[in-house]
């Protein structure tokens, strides 16, 4: 099936006057914005301003690094194999924690809707822990589980699981009673009602919760590593800060930002593929 796609094209095409230089620049600018979009221009412009500020205004390696210096640091760290090691450790921590939180979060959310007793027993804990700034517990987990990977995974799980639980619950609760009645009219049992109505109708909510979890999980990895670790991007950042190596510090931050953007947009893509019925 193909859905007609409407592309936004200006109804009044720009009429270039060949004699006017201004018009020429204007036309070129329009062509660029149409080709790359305003976001690209905004990002590139920001990078240029950043570069200029760190070269001419701040001009101190102790406080700020220019984008070009950060790029150089990235290449250097990658050539030594150090960057890959940090990324591998942080990725392991993130994905293990995220996977555990996703599965457990959806399961707990389902229990909260499916069982009144379960809901009553879990609700106070969830409300309480969710309202607590749980990153503050990271030093405790490190004390308990050591400075290895395990303590970081726990921090990620604790940060990611709550939006998943809360959204799963909310999604299942907003299931339309009319739709449930419709499948019941065809003789559906409660298992079929859950699989054919409640779950698919909750999926957009669950996805939203998982998407929120990406950013929170990345924060968890970095903060936990800052408190004590042998390797990882957080460790790279804290070590670089201690030695006033600004380019390496920003390199760590840049990797994290890129990972966050890549995963969030990957998720949006996945969402569009899995939920094509949504706008």
């Amino acid at each position, binding site marked *: 099936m193909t859905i007609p796609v409407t592309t936004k094209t200006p109804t009044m095409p720009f009429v270039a006057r060949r004699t006017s230089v201004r018009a020429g620049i204007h036309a070129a600018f329009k062509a660029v914005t149409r080709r790359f979009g305003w976001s690209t221009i905004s990002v590139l412009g920001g990078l240029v301003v950043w570069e200029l500020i760190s070269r001419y205004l701040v001009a101190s390696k102790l406080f700020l690094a220019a984008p070009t210096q950060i790029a150089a640091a990235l290449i250097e760290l990658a050539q030594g194999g150090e960057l890959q090691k940090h990324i591998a450790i942080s990725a392991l921590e993130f994905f293990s924690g995220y996977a555990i939180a996703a599965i457990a979060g959806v399961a707990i959310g389902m229990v909260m809707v499916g069982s009144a007793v379960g809901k009553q027993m879990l609700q106070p804990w969830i409300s309480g822990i969710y309202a607590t700034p749980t990153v503050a517990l990271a030093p405790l987990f490190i004390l308990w589980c050591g400075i290895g990977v395990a303590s970081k995974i726990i921090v990620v799980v604790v940060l990611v699981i709550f939006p998943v639980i809360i959204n799963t619950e909310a999604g299942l609760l907003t299931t339309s009673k009319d739709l449930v009645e419709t499948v019941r*009219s065809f003789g559906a049992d409660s298992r079929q009602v859950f699989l054919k109505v409640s779950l698919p109708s909750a999926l957009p909510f669950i996805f939203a919760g998982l998407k929120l979890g990406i950013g929170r999980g990345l924060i968890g990895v970095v903060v936990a590593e800052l408190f004590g670790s042998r390797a990882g991007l957080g460790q790279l950042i804290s070590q670089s800060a201690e030695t006033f190596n600004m380019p390496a510090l920003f390199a760590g931050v840049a990797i994290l930002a890129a990972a966050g953007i890549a995963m969030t947009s990957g998720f949006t893509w996945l969402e569009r593929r899995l939920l094509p019925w949504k706008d």
Partner: protein
Amino acid sequence: MTVPLAKLSVAGMTKSFQDLDVLRDISVDVAKGEFISIVGPSGCGKTTFLRIIGGLEKATSGTARLDGRVIDGPGSDRGFVFQHDNLLPWRTVFSNAQIGPEIGGYVNAEQAKRTHSLLRLVGLDGFAGFFPRHLSGGMRQRVNLARALAVDPDLLLMDEPFSALDAQTREIMQTELLRIWEEGRKTALFVTHQIDEAVYLSDRVFVFGRRPGRISEIVPIDLPRPRPLSVKRRPEFVALVDRIWQLIEEDVRASVLEERG
């Protein structure tokens, strides 16, 4: 009244909410292949009556039998067409229409072919892969109808399925419904507010009165079939509409005044 070998047989059906009798002691038979419309003022219990037959609600007392079996809950021997289309937004037109057989667990190639031909019958050929949000209100109600027919029900139950459509689409849907119904002549119960719709579609019209809900009169409609839309301008048709309107007018007035407080 008793019809020999009734398809649907309702005996002493009463439905109460607390002290209020929504339906009181309804007894009526419907023959195989009959098209019955149910009209009446708001609050006369006509939708409740349909929902009890559909197994979506339980009667306080009395029974409804379909082919002799007491109705005790929903089942695929009945196809329910809902007032709001209630299509699952994440399913395509085809997959929405297939939900009954899917729940019954008898989906196979032949069944799928049958559903495709039902979609053709309701005029949605070529829309099988569309999602409901891409369809108009009239098209969605066609899917709603195809979904009910897909389980090949003994009894088709329709709860004001055209009430949300504009007047022109509704007229077209009425002729379409008759055309589709002529194909299989399923026994049908059709609840509506529109008296002319009831007369146009039906073999008999059950006129419900209110407080308590009961059948105040059964009006046979002996207009010849097939019925073109122009039948609505014939004097017999107009006389029937007029007669039914007179039967419920007082009740409608009472219910309107009550709603106004």
